[in-house]
């Protein structure tokens, strides 16, 4: 009478991955890869030309562009639902909170 329900077979039982529903339009992975390489070289070139002290704004915007490329296309955040996107965005909000609310205290005294 006892039904041996294998818990490990949950994959099929519920909410398993609907067959072949997403990425039918595969983003051009190799093109994005080449773009990332170009951007990397660009940021190295910029940091060589511009003096080190003024390089951060340019270099970090390039990094953010590369980060977005990877996140949206390689991590498929472009096709994800609300839950997954919020799980990806909340850590960035926490990062911003830590950075900006700690700043007045950590920078308040110029170290001897």
């Amino acid at each position: 009478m006892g039904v041996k329900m294998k818990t490990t077979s949950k994959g099929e039982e519920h909410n398993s991955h609907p067959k072949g529903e997403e990425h039918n339009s595969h983003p051009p992975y190799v093109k994005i890869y080449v773009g990332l390489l170009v951007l990397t070289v660009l940021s190295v070139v910029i940091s060589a030309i511009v003096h080190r002290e003024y390089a951060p704004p340019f270099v970090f915007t390039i990094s953010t562009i590369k980060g977005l490329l990877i996140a949206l296309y390689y991590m498929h955040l472009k096709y994800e639902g609300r839950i997954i996107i919020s799980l990806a965005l909340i850590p960035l909000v926490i990062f911003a909170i830590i950075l900006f609310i700690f700043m007045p205290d950590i920078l308040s005294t110029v170290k001897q």
Partner: protein
Amino acid sequence: MKAEGVREVEIQEIQIGQEYEKVGIPFQKIGFWIFLAGEIVILGGIVASVILFRLSYPHWFEESVHTNATIAFINTLVLLTGSLTAVLSHQSAFSYNWGKAQLFLGLTALCGLVFVGLKFVEYSREIHHGFVPSRNVFWMSYYTTTGLHGLHVLAGTLIIFGVMLYIKKKKVPEAVENAALYWHFVDIVWLYIFPLFYLT
């Protein structure tokens, strides 16, 4: 919530596998993204503290000259290649081409090992020149952040090896997707560490 128009009261029997609320997101993906959210905030905490230290420590630039930017540049290329092979393995896993998925996973793992190897070379040279963590603010932040990131790359490689063994028996595409996601996360973090310590 009505089950296909049948009033709930009448239902006496349910087909096995139908007795759950439909959510449309595989549970492996949600579980992994929750774990990843925690990881992002851990590394985010370290990077935020390092940025605060950098802003409060004027002569950060004289120190960052001593870091070896060429090895770091090669490492960036290695990680980006790893990202490409990871996403290709994810794509082939979802089109059920398990041979290709194994191949690309192997390549990604290889990139991971190369990255860690180069990291080891870079550290040994820097310590040889006497740049130990307790030297000043730059070096302690540099070793903490890049060291923790290096450990995460190593962890990613181990995860990939684990998934390669796992999908031999159980053909679960989400496992490959999670390994690829972890690799992309580690890659994005490096995109910010690379300029923070090497370029500026």
